[in-house]
C-alpha cells in the first residue's frame, strides 16, 4: 500500500488535548471533529489539511488521553498518514483502528521539510522524497495492520471478514 502527499510538520509531544480539546468530545460526528482538529496549535490546520496531507512529527505523538476522536478528527480533516519519531501506544492503536496509517520513523523530523512531497510504502517502510532524491526508513507495518488500514479501520475490516 502506497500513500502520497504533501507534508505538514508538527513538533514533539502533540498531545490529545491539543489534537482535539475535551470540550469537543461529546460528539463523534467526523465533520464536526475535523473542524476543530489541532485548534490550539493552529486554528487554520483543518483548512490546510483539507486537500490531503501527510503529518510529520517528533516524539510521543498522541500522548495523553484515550479519546478516539483524536484519530478520527485528523483523518476526517484530510490527514492521510502520520510519520512520527514515536507514538503514544493508545493513539497508535486508535489510528490503525480508524484506517489512518501511522509509522514510526526515527529522526524523520530532521530529514523531511515542510511542503515536501513524500511517497510512503507501508509494507517496506520506505519513504521517498522524489524531488530531493532522499529515502527515509521507517518501521514497516505488519500485513494484518495494512489490511485493517486498507479496509478503512477495524470495524470495516471485521465486517468484511464476516461476509
Amino acid at each position, binding site marked *: 500500500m502506497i500513500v502520497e502527499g504533501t507534508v505538514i510538520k508538527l513538533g514533539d509531544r502533540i*498531545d490529545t488535548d491539543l489534537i482535539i480539546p*475535551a470540550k469537543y468530545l*461529546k460528539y*463523534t460526528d467526523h465533520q464536526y471533529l475535523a473542524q476543530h482538529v489541532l485548534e490550539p496549535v493552529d486554528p487554520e490546520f483543518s483548512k490546510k489539511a483539507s486537500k490531503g496531507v501527510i503529518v510529520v512529527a517528533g516524539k510521543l505523538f498522541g*500522548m*495523553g488521553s484515550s479519546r478516539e476522536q483524536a484519530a478520527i478528527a485528523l483523518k476526517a480533516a484530510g490527514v492521510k498518514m502520520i510519520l512520527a519519531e514515536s507514538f*503514544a*501506544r493508545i493513539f497508535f*492503536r486508535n489510528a490503525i*483502528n480508524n484506517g489512518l496509517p501511522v509509522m514510526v520513523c526515527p529522526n524523520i523530523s530532521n530529514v523531511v521539510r515542510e511542503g515536501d512531497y513524500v511517497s510512503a510504502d507501508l509494507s517496506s517502510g520506505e519513504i521517498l522524497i522524489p524531488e530531493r532524491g532522499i529515502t527515509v526508513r521507517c518501521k514497516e507495518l505488519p500485513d494484518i495492520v495494512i489490511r485493517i488500514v486498507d479496509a478503512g479501520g477495524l470495524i470495516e475490516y471485521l465486517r468484511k471478514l464476516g461476509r
Partner: protein
Amino acid sequence: MYNGQTLTEKILSNASGRAVSPNDIVEVAVDLIGFHDLTGFHVIEIIENLSSGTPLNPEKLVIAFDHLVPPPDIRSAEIQRFVRDFAGKIKVLNFHDIGDGILHQILLERYVMPGYLVVGADSHTSTAGALGAFAQGMGATDVAATIITGRTWVSVPQPFKVVLRGSLKEWVTGKDVALEILKVFKADYFNGMSIEFYVENPSSFPMDYRATVANMGIEFNADSVLFIPDEETTNFLRVERGYEYRGKFLPDDNAEYVDEYTLELSKVDLLIAAPYSVDNVKSIRDVEGMEVDTVFIGSCTNGRLSDLEIAAKIMKGRKIRSRCVVIPASRKVFNKALELGYIQILVNAGCMVTFSTCGPCIGGHFGVAGPGEVVLSTSNRNFKGRMGSPDSKTYLSGPSVAAASAVLGRMAEPGDMP
C-alpha cells in the same frame, strides 16, 4: 537455564494461554472492562454499529459515570441517558450512576484483583496496576471489540523494575514519587515498557500512594505499571473487600528486567510539575511566592482518603486565600472523610467540597480555568488548555503542597505556614 518470568509476563502468559516474551503480540482474554460516560457513548455507538444482536459479556463490564457528573448541559444528560439505557438493556450489574465515584477509584475499591488483565476506555485505567493487575487504557473501538469478544491483543512490553527503598519524609506522598520518576526519566523513556514496582517495606508505601503512581503510569507513557503484590495488597483486599487473597501472581526470583532503578524514598522532596508538561518537574522553591488563583484537590490521581486527610491536617483551624475545590474520588471516600471530620475542616477553611466527579481535571466544569489564571491541581495533566483556557497555567502537585498553597494563596510547602 530456565529464564524466570516477570509479573507482566506471568499475567500475559496466563491471559494468552502461552509463554510470552517481550515484543510478542498476543491475543489475551480480558478479566475486566471499564468505561465511563464520556467514552462510553462512543463505545456503545461502535457496538451497535457492529453487532446488532450479538451476545455481549456484561458480567465483565464496569460502567461508572464520572466525566459529565452531574450533567453540566443538555448533551451530557443525553449521553448519560443513552449509556444508562444500554446498561439496562444488556443488564450490566456493575453499573454506577452519578455520584458513586470515578471509574478508576471504583475499579480499585470493588473489582480489580492482582493478576487481572484490565482494559478500559480511559487512559488512566493504568491505575488498576496498583493492585498488581496488567491494566491498559484503549480507545473506543478496541474497547467495543473487547466487550463483544471478551478478548483483545497486546504487545508484550519490555519489563523495567523500580525498587522503592526506605520511607518518605513528612508530607511527601505518592505524587512526589511519580514526579521524581518523571524528573529523572522524562516522559519518553518508558514508552513500550512495563514498570514493575517492588516496595521493599510494603507498609511504607500504602495503596493510596500506589494508586497515584500507577495512575501517573500513563504520564510516564509506560505500557503498564504494576505494583508487585505484597502484604499491603493483601491487607487492602481484606480491609476494603473482606477478601482473603491467596494468589500466585508474583515475578519469579530469576525474572529478567531490561533495567532496574532503586529510589531512596527518604531522598524524595516535595515537587511540582510546571506547565505545560508533566515532566517539567521543579522544586517548590523554584516557583516560591507565585500567586495561585485556584487549588483543586481531587481526581483519580489524588482524591483518596489519605489526600483529604493531609489537606484537612494542613487546613485545620485555618482559612484559605486561594479559591479551593475539593472532590473526593468516590462516595466511599466521601463518606469516610465525613465520618472522620475532614470534610467539616475543609468546608470551615473555605473550600468548596462536592461529590465525586472528574470536574475541573478535564476542564469540564466545577472550576474551569480562565485566561491568565494559575491553577495548582492534584490531578495528572497540565497540558495547554487541559483545565480550561489555553492561556491558563496548570501546576501539578501532591495534596500537602496544594493545601498549603491554598492557605497562603501562593505556591508553598506545609513548612512555610506560620
